[in-house]
Each structure stands twice: as structure tokens, then as C-alpha cells.
């Protein structure tokens, strides 16, 4: 026996990714017509949620600025991008995709600094998927006649796109790549708390020699977004964000000729049967709710577990949660980074307090949160019922509500008993049950024995209050094309508001 026979703690030393990989400017303007210009609105600050320090001052686009951007997009569409053959557009999209890959580390670091998400995720998920979306849609650009929308579908024109703060660069790529592939030009508004990677993407557009005006980035808060989606010369509105804002957008564009796709909130059920591959199910539960601090519209925020295995699953889940590392987003070993904003942190705290007040049992692993920055420990609520607010409202944070069921019918009924319908997960080793469940779950995406898997070839979108239209895959193209005569719109594709 040696001294090494006594188990010692394997403490991982800090492994920070270098901040020096990015150069954050002190001030950022708007990207209109291929150039950075000053905004005429009141500039705002974007902060590092892990340190609460100001990162940069960013311009606010006023209604006049938005109008300039839409005009630039219209001109680019009419003169250059619309008439350009698909094969030529594809070259630009491939070029953008390659530059995203070449500058992947820089983008990942910037994303983690501005958003608070762990570098492991921005490096291994956000940025590679963003590049994949450009590669995938580059491939479509000269094959649109095979998208099921007629022999010669046409672009809609100018797309006004408003994206959230949870996956800033990835949501940008979900919006811009299909729009450009289909021959549209875009004006995109990133979220006010996470504008920096969109502004870096604007530089990448310059680097790729993308014709001026094809991509325009306008920064700002809600007013800028409202100016954009209500602009009369915008043909298409694409929004990802909260159901509340989505509803007001739907009202704004009602009665106009604008096409709309909305990708809104969710309260997904992750359903674990007694015959699940339990260790992988536990991983899937963790990935479902703690990926990206739970700031995921399709997060598996309601765990429905078969009552006969409830205790065992919860015990294993708690054990696994004990190994999650919460802290510095730039540390390569961090699993859970910072909550994106003080406002969001307050909301998570408020709803968690409601959960306790309503009688659910709250549990978190012992974990020491950093003293500065917006952090929230991974949290588990057991003893939750469908009546509890934490089972009904989207918390958008690392908070999991656990409910039980006894039969497959009950699991389906509980899973569907929500105004949302974005995603669901099913865990069972029984293939026939997966198919049976998938046919009955009212959710746009059903994952079987996995969760939070994304691929540009797979359409993504919701039922009910989770929105309409699909993004990704062949179906996603329908949101950016006008079918040519004889062409049918694929099921679930873009809806005319």
C-alpha cells in the first residue's frame, strides 16, 4: 500500500480559453449597405454576464436607420442578389461557412463573453452548427426547383429577422442562411444583450465580399425590432423569441402581405419510461435542461418519469448533477455558465420561489457560485403537479420540474397539457413505443433516446403557442420562397399571416 492507495480529489486546475483571441471594440455602429455606420438612436451597453462589466457601447437603430437598412436590402435584392443565379449565391454561402470555420475560436470566445454560455458549448455546438447551416443551405441555393415548391420558386424579397439572446450566432445562421440561399436579402436585429457576434458576422460578410446590402445588421432593443417588423417594405418577418412578443408581432403583421414564421417558447416534456436506458436517460435529462443554462426554447423543462422508477431516476440525476461544474464561461471545463442578464436571473429566481411556495421540493447540488456575475445553481423540483406554475410557465433557466405518470396514455396527456408544443423527448428501449408516442405528442420535434440534437437538414418549429413555420431542412425553405405555379407548399411550411 502506498499513499496513492488513498483516494485523492482530482481537482481540475483552471483551463481558461484566451480572451486575447478577440478584439472587442469600444463602440459599434450599425451594418447597413456593406458598411458600418453610426446609429441615430441612444447607444446602449452590452455587458459580460460573468463579470457584470461593460464590454462595448452599441448603436441603437432608430426607425430612420431601420428604413435605411431596408432600403439597402431592397436595392441589393433588386439589383444583385435576386437576379444572381443560385450557383453564384451558393459560392458566397460556402465562403461564409468556411470563414465561420476559420474564425471558429474567435467566434466561440466572443459568444461566451457576450452571452455567458460555456466555451465548451459555443466551441462544440453553436459555432460548428452555425457553419453547418451555411454549408447546408449553400447546397440548396442552385437546387430550389427540387424543394417541392414548383419548378421555379421565387424569393420573397426583403426579410426582417429578429433573433434572441440564447444562441446569438446560431440563430443568426438559422435566419440568414436559408434567406440568402433562396435569394432574399435581410435586415437582422440581434438581441440587445448579445449583439457582438452578429457584428463580427458583419465583418465576415465584408471579408467574404458579400455584395453590399445583402446582409444588414441593426442593433437596438424592442423599438428597433418593432420598426423592422412593421416596415412596409419588409416582405417576410422571421422571429425567434418569447410567445408574448411573438403574439404582438402576429398582430402587427396581420392584414399585411408579409409572410411570417415564429419560433416561440416551450415547456417540453422529457418522458422517461421504466425500460429506458437509464444512464443515457439521465444524461439526456441533464442535457435537456442544463444545456446553455436552460436558455433553450426547446429545453426539456418538464421531466415526466414513470412512477415505478421515479426514486431511482431522481437519485441518479442528483448524483449526476453533483458533477456539473458551474462557473467561468471561458473555462473549458465549465458545464454551466452565466445567466445572460440580471433581468433573466431575477425571473428564474422569482419562478423558483413560486415553485417552493406552491409546495414542490427544491434541490440543488452543493455548489459555490462565483461572487460576481449572474449565476444560478442547477435546480431540481420534485413533487410537481400540472397545476404548479413551474410546470406551466417557461422559466428559461436551469430549473427542472419533475412529474410522474403511470401509463403511456397518461404520459401523452400530461405532455400535451400545455399551451406550448415545440419539442418532446421519449426514453424507452422499446421501439414500438417510441413510434406510438411520437404519433401522439403535439410537438414539432420529438427526440427518441436523445435530446437537444440539432441538424440543419432537420426542420425545427412548433405547434400551438410555440409558433408556426419551420426552420431548417426542405421545409424551412418554404418560409423564404414563393411557390411557382403547380408547386405545393410542404406541410407545416410558412403561413401567410
Amino acid at each position, binding site marked *: *500500500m*502506498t499513499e*496513492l*492507495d*488513498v*483516494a*485523492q*480529489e*482530482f*481537482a*481540475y*486546475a*483552471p*483551463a481558461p480559453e484566451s480572451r486575447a483571441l478577440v478584439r472587442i471594440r469600444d463602440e459599434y455602429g450599425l451594418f447597413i449597405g456593406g458598411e458600418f455606420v453610426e446609429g441615430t438612436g441612444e447607444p446602449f451597453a452590452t455587458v459580460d454576464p*460573468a*463579470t457584470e462589466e461593460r464590454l462595448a457601447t452599441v448603436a441603437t437603430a432608430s426607425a430612420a436607420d431601420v428604413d435605411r437598412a431596408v432600403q439597402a436590402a431592397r436595392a441589393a435584392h433588386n439589383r444583385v442578389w435576386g437576379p444572381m443565379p443560385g450557383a453564384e449565391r451558393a459560392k458566397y454561402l460556402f465562403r461564409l461557412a468556411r470563414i465561420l470555420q476559420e474564425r471558429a475560436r474567435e467566434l466561440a470566445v466572443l459568444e461566451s463573453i457576450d452571452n455567458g454560455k460555456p466555451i*465548451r458549448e459555443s466551441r*462544440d455546438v453553436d459555432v460548428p452548427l452555425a457553419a453547418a447551416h451555411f454549408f447546408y443551405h449553400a447546397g440548396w441555393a442552385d437546387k430550389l426547383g427540387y424543394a417541392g415548391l414548383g419548378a421555379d420558386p421565387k424569393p420573397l424579397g426583403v426579410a426582417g429577422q429578429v433573433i434572441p439572446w440564447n444562441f446569438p450566432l446560431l440563430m443568426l445562421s438559422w435566419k440568414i442562411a436559408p434567406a440568402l440561399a433562396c435569394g432574399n436579402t435581410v435586415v437582422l436585429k440581434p438581441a440587445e444583450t448579445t449583439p457582438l457576434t452578429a457584428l463580427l458576422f458583419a465583418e465576415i460578410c465584408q471579408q467574404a465580399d458579400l455584395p453590399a446590402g445583402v446582409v444588414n445588421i441593426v442593433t437596438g432593443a424592442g423599438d428597433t425590432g418593432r420598426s423592422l417588423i412593421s416596415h412596409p417594405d419588409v416582405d417576410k418577418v422571421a422571429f425567434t423569441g418569447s410567445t408574448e412578443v411573438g403574439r404582438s408581432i402576429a398582430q402587427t403583421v396581420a392584414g399585411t402581405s408579409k409572410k411570417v414564421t415564429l419560433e416561440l417558447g416551450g415547456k417540453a416534456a422529457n418522458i422517461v419510461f421504466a*425500460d*429506458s*436506458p*437509464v*444512464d*443515457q*436517460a439521465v*444524461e*439526456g435529462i441533464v442535457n435537456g435542461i442544463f444545456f446553455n443554462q436552460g436558455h433553450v426554447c426547446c429545453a426539456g423543462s418538464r421531466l415526466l418519469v414513470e412512477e415505478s422508477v421515479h426514486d431511482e431516476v431522481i*437519485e441518479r440525476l*442528483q*448524483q449526476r448533477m*453533483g*458533477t*456539473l*461544474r*458551474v*462557473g*467561468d464561461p471561458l*473555462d*473549458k*471545463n465549465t458545464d454551466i455558465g452565466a445567466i445572460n442578464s440580471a433581468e433573466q436571473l431575477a425571473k428564474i429566481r422569482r419562478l423558483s420561489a413560486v415553485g417552493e411556495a406552491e409546495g414542490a421540493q427544491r434541490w440543488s*447540488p*452543493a*455548489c*459555490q*457560485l*462565483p*461572487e*460576481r*456575475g449572474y449565476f444560478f445553481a442547477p435546480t431540481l423540483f420534485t413533487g410537481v403537479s400540472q397545476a404548479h406554475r413551474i410546470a406551466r410557465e417557461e422559466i428559461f433557466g436551469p430549473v427542472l420540474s419533475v412529474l410522474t405518470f403511470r401509463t403511456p396514455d397518461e404520459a401523452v396527456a400530461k405532455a400535451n397539457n400545455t399551451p406550448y408544443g415545440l419539442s418532446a423527448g421519449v426514453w424507452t*428501449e422499446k421501439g414500438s413505443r417510441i413510434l406510438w408516442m411520437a404519433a401522439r405528442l403535439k410537438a414539432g420535434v420529438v427526440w427518441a*433516446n*436523445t435530446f437537444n440534437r440539432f441538424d440543419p437538414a432537420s426542420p425545427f418549429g412548433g405547434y400551438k403557442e410555440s409558433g408556426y413555420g419551420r426552420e431548417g431542412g426542405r421545409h424551412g425553405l418554404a418560409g423564404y420562397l414563393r411557390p411557382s405555379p403547380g408547386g405545393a407548399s410542404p406541410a407545416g411550411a410558412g403561413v401567410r399571416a
Partner: protein
Amino acid sequence: MTLTRPQTGRDRLNSLRPSLSAADIDDLARGGPALRGFLRGLPGVDQVGLEGRAAALATRSIKATAKSFAIDLAISMLDLTTLEGADTPGKVRSLCARARCPDPDRPDGPRPAAVCVYPDLAAVARAALAGSGIAVASVATGFPSGRTSVDVKVQEVAEAIDAGADEVDMVIDRGAFLAGDYDTVFGEIAAVRQACARGIEAGGARSVHLKVILETGELATYDHVRQASWLAMLAGADFIKTSTGKVSPAATLPVTLVMLEAVRDFRASTGRQVGVKAAGGIRTSKDAIRYLVTVNETAGPDWLTPRWFRFGASSLLDDLLRQRMRTDSGHYVGADYVTMD
């Protein structure tokens, strides 16, 4: 910003209630439908999810002090191995000399846990390691294929122990396992277990550790790996070991992850702790550190000692020593700066 230290899994593990009593285990040991039903009732393993988890664990970034710690720990967990038809007493003696002093520049540095040889060379290793505290491990039971009778296997184990083996690495009968004949596999492990116990009586206070090699490359599915792990543990294995090193693939991170889940769950169910040995194909410090991370975050820190986790390898030590020198000196030395054997 202060980094948050994660809670170790140990407290949680200890809180799991034993669900298999001694009487339950006796029932299973009688084999037949009870054993078959138990093994087939184990939760399935989803291949995609398992491999995804292993890949995620492999992205842990182990730097600075953590890296030095991990490399020293990996050296101390080594079963320095030579299992060739061409092995000679001289080769074994030089391997033992290297085990006694892997890095002449660091005489106080960590040393391998054991030297692993064929049974006919166990006596040579025993003599060469006398007084060193380094164990002699001997493969046995018709290694590597195991295609011989149980009597021959037991006899071989007895001879290895007589020759001075402290640890016996047996192979299971994969053919019997794949044919669904769990009783045969169980019976052989139990018989070897008994032979090890007899060896202890014959050799005085010496404890002989039984490592059971599953040869996961031939079991093919992760479900089989999980079932074979439980089978071996129920039959009395002190360690479960991935591979002989003679079949490809040998140890992989996902396979080892399944086995670590099995020992974690087995302790939670029975209260008895079983070790894991990953053998074959682990050649670099980077690989070894990935295994240690997986041990740490799956079975938990209780397994992070040579008592409960081992590497079976022949060339891994070279890279561990070179990387260890690098953490001290700042540069990666050429292969000729570490002794070859």
C-alpha cells in the same frame, strides 16, 4: 472570479440504498433462470448516448497541477505488461527493473502498481520485484482465448499463485456468454475465485486479487458489456477488466464508462466495491487522463487509486514519463530520454 468546485459524487453514492442482499446474491449464484432473468433485466445501454457522453468527458481540459497529479496517478495505476510468445526471463527482469525505477531522475516518483506476465514467468517477476511493494500479476485460464477446460484453468491459476502471483487476470468464456450459457461463465469465475482463496491459505497472509477479463471486443455490444460486468462481479471478481490486448478493439472510453457505471451501481446495490482495469490500446498520457476524468465523474473519486483502477499497458509509461518531464521542464523530451525497458 472564483471557480466553483464541483461537489464530488461520493456523498450521493453512499446514500444509495443497497438493494441486493447477501441472500439475493446467493440466489443469483445458484444460476439458472434467476441469474438469466437478473442479467437480462439490467437497464439497456443506448449506444449513441453512451458514446456521446464518453466524447464529452474526453473534452475535459486537464492542465498544470491537475495534469501532473493525473500523470503521477496514472503511473501508479499501471500494470506494466509483457504478454508475448517471445517473452524471456531477461525481458521480464528488465521490465521489473523499470517498474522499480521508471524515472531514474525522479527516484521518489510514482511506480507502477504491478508487473503483468504469463504464469510461467511469474516466478521470475516475483524474484525481480522482491521487497519492492510492486505486485506480480499473472494472466491465466488459457489466456487469451480461454478455450480450455475449467480444470486446466483452475490448475493454471494455482500454479501462477504458487509461483508468486499476487493478482490473477483470468479471461471469461466469451463463447459461453454469447451462447447465453451464463451458468458456465459464472461457474468458471467462481471456481477461479476459490482457487485464489486456496492460494491465500497456501501462501499465508498474501491476498490474491482476481481480475476478470471480459474481452469486450468480442462481446461486441454495450448491453453485453454491462451484463458480463454484473456476471463477473456477482461471481466474485475483485476487478473487471476490459480486454486481453490481443483483440481489437481493446479498451475504449465508452466500454470503460459502461464498466464504471456497473461497479458504481454494484457497490450501491451490494455495498461491495469492485475495481476496473482498462487494458490495451491506451498509449498516450492524453488517453490515460481521459480515462481518469471518466473514473472521477462516473464511479467517483473513491475509485481514483491503484487499489480500484488500473491501466494494462506496455508503452503508456513512456509517454507518461515524457509528459511528466514536460510539466517539470517545460519541453517534451525525445524518446531516448526515457529508458526503453
